[in-house]
């Protein structure tokens, strides 16, 4: 009914509510434009700083994207916000530290150092993937037909368990680990680029490409997309839904594992509650891009990484970092609840 009146009134006169919406929308666009102009201004007046910061943003963005993918995939397939996902990432940081530093003592950028790093990457991926799959098998699968709150609380519980394990392995405080590259950097003209940025991107980009291929071109990917859209229908096509969901958890976990190793090697510090903060930011990335949408998660991750870096360098500074990120989240929720790339499909009855 209100729909009908709204359509009619467009041709006649705007209702007060519409005028209000228009003002709010207009203001937010103006705000966005001003911010964009300010950043552009900086790009022209301080190009060296701008690009240095930009590379830093890319590094964080890549890590957010990897973790965000795990959130968005699991949400896409069983509509669960896996609150323990960030903590899985944290465990991967600790495990990589243990492997690289405590057990194998590789802290120099030598060839064996990098080979060990690749080994640690694989171990972290397999481990995080297995733990996530195990959680699905023993906990979430049994709760699939339960009210939505049950798996959610289970995820929160798992988050605490992972954090406790983190305390056992990493201690209750911040712990610094030596890394292969430290903050060694090279110069690209006037722009300073950390080597760790290059490492993060050389691992992340192939992983993202492989993911895209897997989802869009393989049988397993087809099964995942079908299951995400309609579980029963997928079953009727002959998709093994249980296996597909388990695979999704494995994949999401593996990406979080990769992000964990990369974090440790590029930041060099971790704490048992790292997963909570980073998890929230990664989750925000997923929502920003449109939860359930894989490209959206990657886009959201990189956007937030870059915005964060630019903010810290040019706008409000370090202390406001979280505020900026969550303001973005709130704005997205208000103005485009489906996210940047999420499209509400019209499903006809």
């Amino acid at each position, binding site marked *: 009914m209100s729909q009908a009146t709204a359509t009619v009134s467009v041709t006649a006169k705007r209702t007060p509510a519409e005028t209000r919406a228009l003002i709010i929308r207009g203001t937010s666009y103006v705000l966005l434009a001003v911010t964009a102009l300010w950043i552009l201004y900086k790009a022209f007046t301080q190009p060296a700083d701008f690009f240095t910061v930009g590379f830093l943003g890319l590094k964080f963005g890549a890590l957010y994207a990897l973790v965000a993918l795990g959130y968005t995939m699991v949400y896409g397939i069983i509509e669960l916000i896996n609150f323990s996902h960030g903590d899985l990432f944290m465990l991967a940081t600790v495990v990589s530290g243990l492997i690289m530093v405590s057990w194998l003592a590789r802290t120099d950028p030598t060839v064996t150092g990098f080979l060990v790093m690749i080994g640690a990457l694989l171990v972290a991926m397999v481990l995080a993937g297995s733990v996530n799959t195990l959680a699905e098998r023993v906990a979430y699968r049994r709760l699939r037909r339960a009210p939505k709150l049950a798996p959610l609380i289970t995820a929160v519980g798992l988050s605490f368990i992972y954090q406790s394990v983190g305390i056992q392995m990493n201690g209750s405080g911040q712990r610094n680990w030596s890394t292969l590259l430290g903050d060694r950097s090279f110069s690209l003209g006037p722009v300073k680029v950390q080597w760790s940025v290059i490492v993060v991107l050389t691992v992340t980009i192939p992983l993202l490409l492989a993911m895209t291929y897997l989802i869009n071109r393989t*049988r397993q990917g*087809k*099964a995942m*997309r*079908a299951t995400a*859209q*309609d579980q*029963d*229908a*997928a*079953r*009727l*096509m*002959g*998709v*093994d*839904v249980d296996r597909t969901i388990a695979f999704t958890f494995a994949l999401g976990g593996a990406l979080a594992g990769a992000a964990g190793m990369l974090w440790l090697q590029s930041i060099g510090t971790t704490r048992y509650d790292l997963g909570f903060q980073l998890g929230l930011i990664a989750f925000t990335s997923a929502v920003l891009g449109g939860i359930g949408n894989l490209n959206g998660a990657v886009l959201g991750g990189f956007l937030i990484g870059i915005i964060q870096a630019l903010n810290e360098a040019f706008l409000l500074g370090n202390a406001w970092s979280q505020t900026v990120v969550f303001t973005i989240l709130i704005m997205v929720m208000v103005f485009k609840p489906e996210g940047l790339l999420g499209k509400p*499909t*019209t*499903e*006809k*009855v």
Partner: protein
Amino acid sequence: MSAQSSTSQTGEARGTGEILLKIDDLQVYYGAIAAVKGISLEVRQGEIVTLIGSNGAGKSTTLRTISGLIKPRQGSVTFAGKNVTTMSGHGIVEAGICHSPEGRRIFPRMTVDENLDMGAFLRNDKDGIAEDREHVLELFPRLRERIAQKAGTLSGGEQQMLAVARAMMGRPKLLLLDEPSMGLAPVLVDLIFDTIQTIRDQGTTILLVEQNALAALGIADYAYVLESGALKLQGSARRLAEDDEVTRAYLGG
């Protein structure tokens, strides 16, 4: 067996085709509520068998149980001589049962082509798949026009065609159709029912669930009438269409 004996038989002798699907004393519960209370039925090779009855009679539940989406509390489903009652859903598809479910359930964010492709998910014979794709597009030319369109944007009738076409892409021995005429314009209903007959004539056995009893009896060989989860009547479709009780209860006569 109890259900069988309490059912009044209106039929003359059944066709002599081989029994493809046999359901024996099937009981299905949703929690504590019995949706199907001991149904037994048969589908023979080459037949169109229809399951009619009012809303909530247990028709869709029966089909969902055959496909393995729900597990029965008691009773068995035998397909082509094999007990498929405890088989997984994909095992049942592999055995040759494809199901076009109630409410169409197409994949809305995939294109028409991708939906058809999903129908052939378990198959590996590329040539056969291409052949069947061509075949269903001939049956439903409208789908060819929409081939690259996201299935969620199709009209209701087109989605229904897609649901049937998708099920056929599995090259089933037995095709389960759940309410293929629901919500369609009369001209489309005729088209769908004509096509169902064509599909049967090309060699696929069909178990059809319908609320549109008149149309279903018009194309079926044999019919079962369900009422609150139990078999009420069975017989050749022609005889049931003339049966007073059926006419009064389901055909609005």
